[in-house]
């Protein structure tokens, strides 16, 4: 059974249908990269998986349980699914340590005594051990994004969603974030990413999903998709991003 099962999902914003019947399976430990032009529905699909958006049709199941059918334990579900956004969304009024430990403490996943150690552990994984007492606005964009990843890791997620996490960063800061994500991939984390980083998609992902006009247009292993695209849309997309 796949960890994530997306079945014929339809999503509208007002009258605009942004997802027109999307289906996608992601197995445990798999790293799936969603690419496509802006407006193709990639970010919306990611947000639907985490129930940040409602859907008009179809079904999304994570760990075998339907996400959108008024799940009583939506909060429990979200505690197991980490999502990182383009804009970091750290809590600006809290220091790095508290940013990381707030949710584990409030959801009873850690104790006051163990919280600091938890923050130290996840910060070490993103290479920011020395920033535990910093304020978010004292950090660079790349560092803030790594704290955002650490904040998710502290919840011990089973699945990580990344929504264009390097798009808001200065070019020289992209590498440090991608390195952290590669390390997570090596450790077997199931990851679904929406990204414009074709190098990362090519080298780290197990599978590429090309979305076009609200549909999964083409999918397959990166070696195949990048070298021998079947559809003219993907071919032109790849040509334009080189």
């Amino acid at each position: 059974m796949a960890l994530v099962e997306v079945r014929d999902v339809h999503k509208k914003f007002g009258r605009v249908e942004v997802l027109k019947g999307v289906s996608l399976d992601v197995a445990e430990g798999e790293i799936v990269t969603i690419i496509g032009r802006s407006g193709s529905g990639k970010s919306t699909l990611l947000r639907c998986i985490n129930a940040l958006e409602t859907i008009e049709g179809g079904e999304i199941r994570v760990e075998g349980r339907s996400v959108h059918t008024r799940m009583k334990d939506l909060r429990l579900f979200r505690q197991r699914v980490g999502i990182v956004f383009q804009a970091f969304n750290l809590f600006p009024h809290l220091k790095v340590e508290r940013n990381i430990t707030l949710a584990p403490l409030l959801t009873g996943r850690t104790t006051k005594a163990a919280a600091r150690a938890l923050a130290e552990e996840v910060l070490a994984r993103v290479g920011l051990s020395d920033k535990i007492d910093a304020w978010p606005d004292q950090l660079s964009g790349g560092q803030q994004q790594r704290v955002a990843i650490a904040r998710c890791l502290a919840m011990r997620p089973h699945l990580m969603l990344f929504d264009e996490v390097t798009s808001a960063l200065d070019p020289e800061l992209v590498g440090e974030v991608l390195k952290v994500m590669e390390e997570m991939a090596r450790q077997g984390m199931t990851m679904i990413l929406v990204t414009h980083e074709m190098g990362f998609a090519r080298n780290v992902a197990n599978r590429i999903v090309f979305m076009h006009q609200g549909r999964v247009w083409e999918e397959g292993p990166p070696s195949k998709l990048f070298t021998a695209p079947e559809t003219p849309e993907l071919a032109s997309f790849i040509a334009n991003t080189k």
Partner: protein
Amino acid sequence: MRSLSFVDFVSLISAIQWTVMLVVLALAFGAPLGLGLATARISRFAPLRWLAASIIQVVQGVPLLGLLFFFYFGMPMFLGVQVPAILAVTVAYTLYTAGFLGDIWRGGLEAVKEAQWEAGACLGLSVLQQFVHIIGPQALRLSLPPTVGFLVQLIKGTSLASIVGFVELARAGQVASAATFQPLMIYGVVASLYFALCFPLTLWSRSLEARLDGSR
């Protein structure tokens, strides 16, 4: 008529306690009510938003004097009971405070980015937890300078309670002035006492504005 004496100044200074008490009562009841109005204003439940908006509109649209008259003179007419001045005055100032703080705090809550709620929700926090730990503290920082600014308005506004016979600083001034026929002197002192109460708050509000740029 008698001449101005030391006793008059003592009575004025001791009247400050009633002004302060009125402010404290208005805040004690008005601030929680204001918080309720502010959260109702951003509720997902539309009728609750409309109700809160109407209350705020009415309170802000009616002169404070009107509120005082309504509760002091109006209530006996409608309910047939004479309410004590302290009760009428407390209710009026509570509503006044709630109406203004509710609007100030609503602005603060709305100024916190939607993405902050979302970030909390994605970590599996309940709406209440998001409000208490993430949105509230940021909104409070943003609203603190205008809140202190309103406090100054409230302090000065308590002088209107003298109209319905509630003895606070302004009323004590009237009494002393009537007894001594030294209005210039007496009201000069009264004005300086209000100034002495409000000026530090104004300074505090300004320094808060400079220090809290809303980013942290």
